[in-house]
């Protein structure tokens, strides 16, 4: 399968048609729900306690729906207007922001009890504009994410690294920003989940 990151920048790739197709595809729904459930497990949140969570690259809210089903409040950030519009149509409970995570997470320090990102981070490894430097964008992303989490919070970021270099690139910038943690390879060959805390 060709990687969508190579076809067009995310805000162009996820246009109205793609946003609808994506959100209605039952196979995609199943996968995104499963991966978000796994991500919540890895967040190790206090039991039976609604938390305030961040969903990065929230898209049309397939991952967010899992967060709210488990009783959590969430804020989602995505760069594709068409995906967010579908999320509004689906009446997700989370609050939505249009933003580029490569420009940083625009929140005060210590806001969120945890963060998830499901199938989005691989986009940050790409340079879609002449001014894009993946290392800088990843560092900006991780350092601002680190700052807006509470002290005991974790971030679980599931993504599709293209190869081990990309995995290394992401891990290095995460560590540089203060995260420690590890890689969880849940579904070898298809999905890699990465958990930082």
């Amino acid at each position, binding site marked *: 399968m060709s990687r969508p990151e190579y076809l067009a920048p995310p805000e162009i790739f996820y246009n109205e048609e793609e946003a609808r197709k994506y959100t209605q595809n039952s196979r995609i729904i199943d996968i995104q729900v499963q991966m978000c459930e796994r991500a919540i497990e890895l967040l190790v949140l206090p039991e039976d*306690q*609604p938390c*305030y969570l961040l969903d990065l690259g929230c898209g049309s809210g397939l991952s967010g729906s899992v967060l709210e089903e488990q009783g959590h*409040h969430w*804020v989602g*950030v995505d*760069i594709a*207007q068409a995906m*967010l*519009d579908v999320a*509004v149509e689906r009446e997700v*409970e989370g*609050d*939505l*922001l*249009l*933003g*580029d995570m490569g*420009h*940083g*997470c*625009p*929140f*005060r320090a*210590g*806001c969120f009890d945890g963060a998830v990102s499901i199938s989005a981070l691989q986009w940050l490894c790409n340079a879609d*504009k002449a*001014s894009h430097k993946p290392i800088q964008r990843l560092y*900006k992303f991780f350092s*601002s994410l680190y700052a*807006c989490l*509470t002290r005991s919070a974790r971030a679980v970021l599931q993504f599709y690294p293209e190869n081990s270099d990309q995995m290394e690139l992401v891990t290095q910038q995460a560590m540089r920003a203060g995260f420690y943690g590890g890689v969880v390879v849940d579904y070898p060959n298809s999905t890699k989940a990465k958990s930082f805390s």
Partner: protein
Amino acid sequence: MKLLTHNMLTSKCLKGVSVGYPLGINATEVTTSVVDFDPEFISRLIPKLEWHALKQASDIIGEKGYLPEALIADYENNEEFLKKVHHALLEIEVVSGNLVCPETGRSFPINNGIPNMLLNEDEV
């Protein structure tokens, strides 16, 4: 956009902005909805809030004077107060309007309930 989100949101990703908080808020359309009240969640959220920013936003977007000037003592045991905070944080939503960076005056439009925080490459 809920006022809870506004309370957390900054414009610090803009080049040259150090704090970027609180963002000015203007609304041309506001709605209210009903969200399940969870006193424990609200109690745990309160220490994370910037009270003054919430009070100001609620005065502008909601009903003036709805929230007190200062956070009250012993709020955990005051259900009436927690309900008010719940309403201000989660039930009032700005559908359209804009947010304004306090340091640069840069405006971020809100459409369809979604603040547009995208920056131009020369702003980062």
